[in-house]
């Protein structure tokens, strides 16, 4: 029952969304626990009811969606018990929303755990180091309770080598470890996993930060068992330290089930060719770099590379391409027509270099690219990839006044060519309302719209107006929209529109926008499905915070940093809502009890566990 995570998704929102049905009532809390349920551990039912319960359990085995399961568990005690017995996957969207022991007491037969920790803005250095989200208490509870645990997927958690060791020691059937944006572990922990998890199928390390010192790197690749392995997926492009290539080559050769392989930047084309020769059955390949190791002119591996790609008839997803030497790009032509997913977001390519490749990728559904290709490159994408569902355009130079060569023009091209677009993330320097409106009309299937105009407060490039009109069109016309990130010059009007039309929005990201408390109030009152709200550097104050009191129990979290909040307002929220944890985070702790009235960072979330006990000094729970 593996949750389908988009291959290259930096956050697995799409995976979550695919499994959720629309909320039927505003008051339903819909993740981790299903809210206060019937008491655990009451007396067993009479015999006839027991039979019914057995039948129910058999039926509930087929229920996989956690939304549906939460609904089923709330019917009555019998259903609650049956559901708890039959749940196999535990999803906890906020590790502090419930205590480990409580989860483990309620669900006793879990095989798969998904656990998320820090707020997303931690990715952008807004959460100080040491804030929390330690995996340790969880792994200890799981280790004691879930002998049959097979899969662990963690996102933004702090994971130590010791935790990894506990995994390896506690779960004899362990198959799948996926760590996304985690930190705190090193190659030592990886070695333990490789060595001891004999049934390992998936080891996916995605955008983690490893703690290796240069001279303490462990040769973890060599630690996999010498025999044939059951590896299906090995992703380690974020493991930046060097590794034993020969050991990897042998490992790939003795892993006949291997379908996904993403290596790090210590692999050059000559080595890539060898890996591909050992594993022609690969479906997903991350090339690491895309350069020759010997430098131009000495050896031409081009021909071999072409035949290597030619032999890989199953490839549907390509990524990597760091330090790309574009003269080798033609080697991938044989697989272009089969590709559904292509990640060029580390490849500094011009439009001319992209063109011959993208022209052949008729079946592309997911495309990540750098803005170095410019509006012209996006035109080629629009003309070639009619089936595109997800586009991400990242900035080559992520500063506010860099020479980005993508703009509203590129967005317009995409909207005209890629009508089936569902998800877009677009970084640019300049934008117009007209292009955003065009996208809203041409791409009505949009579920995710994230526009980042990197210059703060920039209005429409041509008319000089705020970007209100563009976002208004998006929320009005894209009726399936569940995730929205706004940018550019925005007044409260934009939020009025979002609150009015964005009824399905679950995740909203706001930065440097709005005029007054009214803006936030519109959103809190209007977006009835809102789960995750993250705001930075916007002029929303205590009044708006307090206006959201009726809604915070329906949300997973609210993050507000560099807004106009004060301790008075935050304390009132905390006082009013006992099941909310209200964290005030400071960057540095000056003197001991000096309390500043202004709140720099606020993170509040509903929780059954109450105030956490592992707060660092710079966090105050109100």
């Amino acid at each position: 029952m593996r949750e389908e995570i988009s291959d290259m998704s930096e956050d697995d929102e799409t995976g979550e969304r695919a499994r959720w049905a629309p909320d039927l009532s505003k008051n339903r809390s819909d993740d981790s626990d299903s809210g206060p349920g019937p008491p655990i551990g009451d007396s067993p039912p009479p015999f006839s009811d027991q039979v019914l319960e057995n039948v129910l359990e058999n039926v509930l085995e087929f229920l996989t969606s956690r939304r549906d399961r939460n609904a089923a568990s709330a019917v009555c005690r019998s259903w609650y018990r049956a559901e708890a017995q039959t749940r196999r996957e535990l999803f906890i969207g906020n590790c502090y929303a419930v205590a480990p022991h409580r989860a483990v007491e309620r669900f006793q037969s879990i095989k798969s755990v998904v656990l998320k920790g820090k707020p997303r803005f931690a990715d952008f250095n807004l959460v100080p180091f040491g804030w929390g989200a330690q995996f340790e208490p969880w792994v200890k509870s799981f280790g004691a309770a879930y002998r049959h645990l097979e899969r662990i997927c963690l996102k933004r958690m702090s994971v130590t080598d010791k935790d990894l060791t506990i995994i390896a020691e506690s779960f004899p059937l362990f198959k799948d470890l996926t760590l996304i944006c985690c930190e705190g572990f090193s190659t030592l922990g990886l070695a333990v996993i490789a060595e001891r998890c004999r049934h390992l199928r998936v080891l996916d390390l995605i955008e983690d930060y490893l703690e290796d010192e240069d001279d303490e790197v462990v040769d973890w690749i060599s630690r996999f068992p010498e025999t044939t392995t059951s590896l299906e997926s090995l992703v380690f492009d974020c493991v930046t330290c060097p590794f034993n290539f020969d050991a990897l080559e042998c490992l790939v050769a003795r892993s006949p089930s291997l379908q996904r392989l993403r290596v790090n930047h210590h692999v050059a084309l000559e080595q890539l060719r060898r890996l591909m020769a050992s594993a022609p059955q690969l479906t997903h390949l991350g090339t690491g770099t895309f350069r020759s190791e010997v430098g131009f002119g000495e050896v031409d591996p081009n021909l071999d590379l072409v035949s290597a790609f030619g032999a890989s008839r199953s490839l549907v997803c390509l990524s990597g391409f760091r330090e790309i030497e574009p003269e080798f790009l033609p080697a991938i032509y044989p697989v272009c027509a089969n590709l559904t997913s292509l990640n060029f977001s580390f490849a500094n390519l011009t439009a001319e270099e992209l063109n011959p490749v993208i022209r052949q990728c008729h079946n592309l559904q997911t495309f990540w690219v750098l803005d170095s290709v410019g509006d012209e490159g996006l035109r080629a994408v629009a003309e070639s990839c009619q089936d595109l569902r997800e586009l991400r355009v990242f900035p080559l130079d992520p500063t506010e006044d860099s020479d980005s060569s993508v703009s509203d023009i590129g967005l317009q091209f995409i909207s005209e060519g890629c009508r089936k677009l569902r998800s877009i993330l677009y970084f640019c320097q300049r934008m117009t309302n007209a292009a955003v409106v065009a996208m809203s009309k041409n791409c009505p299937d949009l579920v995710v719209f994230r526009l980042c105009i990197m210059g703060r407060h920039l209005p429409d490039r041509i008319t000089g107006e705020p970007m209100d009109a563009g976002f208004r069109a998006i929320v009005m016309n894209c009726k399936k929209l569940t995730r929205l990130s706004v940018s550019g010059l925005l007044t409260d009007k934009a939020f009025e529109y979002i609150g009015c039309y964005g009824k399905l929005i679950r995740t909203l990201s706001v930065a440097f926008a709005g005029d007054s408390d009214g803006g936030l109030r519109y959103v809190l009152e209007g977006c009835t499905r809102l789960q995750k709200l993250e705001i930075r550097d916007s002029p929303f104050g205590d009044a708006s915070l307090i206006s959201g009191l009726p809604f915070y129990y329906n949300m997973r979290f609210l993050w507000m940093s560099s807004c106009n909040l004060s301790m008075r307002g935050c304390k009132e929220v905390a006082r009013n809502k006992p099941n909310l944890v209200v964290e005030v985070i400071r960057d540095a702790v000056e003197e001991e009890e000096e309390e500043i009235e202004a709140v720099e960072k606020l993170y509040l979330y509903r929780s059954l566990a109450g105030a956490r006990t592992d707060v660092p000094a710079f966090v105050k729970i109100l």
Partner: protein
Amino acid sequence: MEGEAPRLLDLIPKDRDWVGKGVCKVKNGIEEKLELRLGLPGEENEKEEKQSAKSAFSLSFSENVSKRTFLGSVVTNEGKGTERKASGAPPVAHGTRTINSSIANNSSQTITSNAPVVGWPPIRSFRKNLASSSNSKSPLETRDEGPVNGNKADSDKKGCFVKINMDGIPIGRKIDLKAYGDYDELSSAVDQLFRGLLAAQRDPLVNEKSGGENNQEIKGLLDGSGEYTLVYEDEEGDRVLVGDVPWKMFISTAKRLRVLKTSDLSVSSINTVSRKRAATDC
């Protein structure tokens, strides 16, 4: 016109709402609006909502920052005919930034809005520094803002590879500057590199590897006498004619090479060169 300059330097406009309304409201009583007060912002809100709940003592720097940039953007909008230090033709975005920096420089109390902001743009650290030249290894991610390039030693050992692109040829190449001893060797290497490709571009039937003697030699790269001229881009991104500086200096400063059509070299690029020459002479 001049009267507007002091207004720029008055700190915070009391009313931020006029940003969305266009020019006319700005002109009415703008001096009154820009008067520095500790009153509540947004009191003359077009939406009748009183913002009285707003904290009078806003300690948030970001609000000041936002207000200044609002001011900047509106003033730029209305100032199409206005003389402004560096605005003129550039798009609104540029104007905003210029004005911000002038405010920042002149104001002692406010924080410059042009200073890099933590976590903005919202890009994870491993995606930063992709713009570094292709011969350096990808930077190691760190938790701090600045990434660490851990493999500099490797690139030194390998020589000095720079990208070289030729006009009309879509795919660029890389060459090792340290492999050559002087400009003539470099010129003939460039000729070897692109001769076949150029012939293939011109006549698609020509295989780039065959008929080496029949392909036209690319001559006169250094003296402007040929159809193409060799230029390079230095650390500052300026384009300079190849051949002016001592070879050793050239190797260390050239970041990228280009083979441009001589006819395309415009007056402005020649100006760049003479300024560069003057700079190195001094």
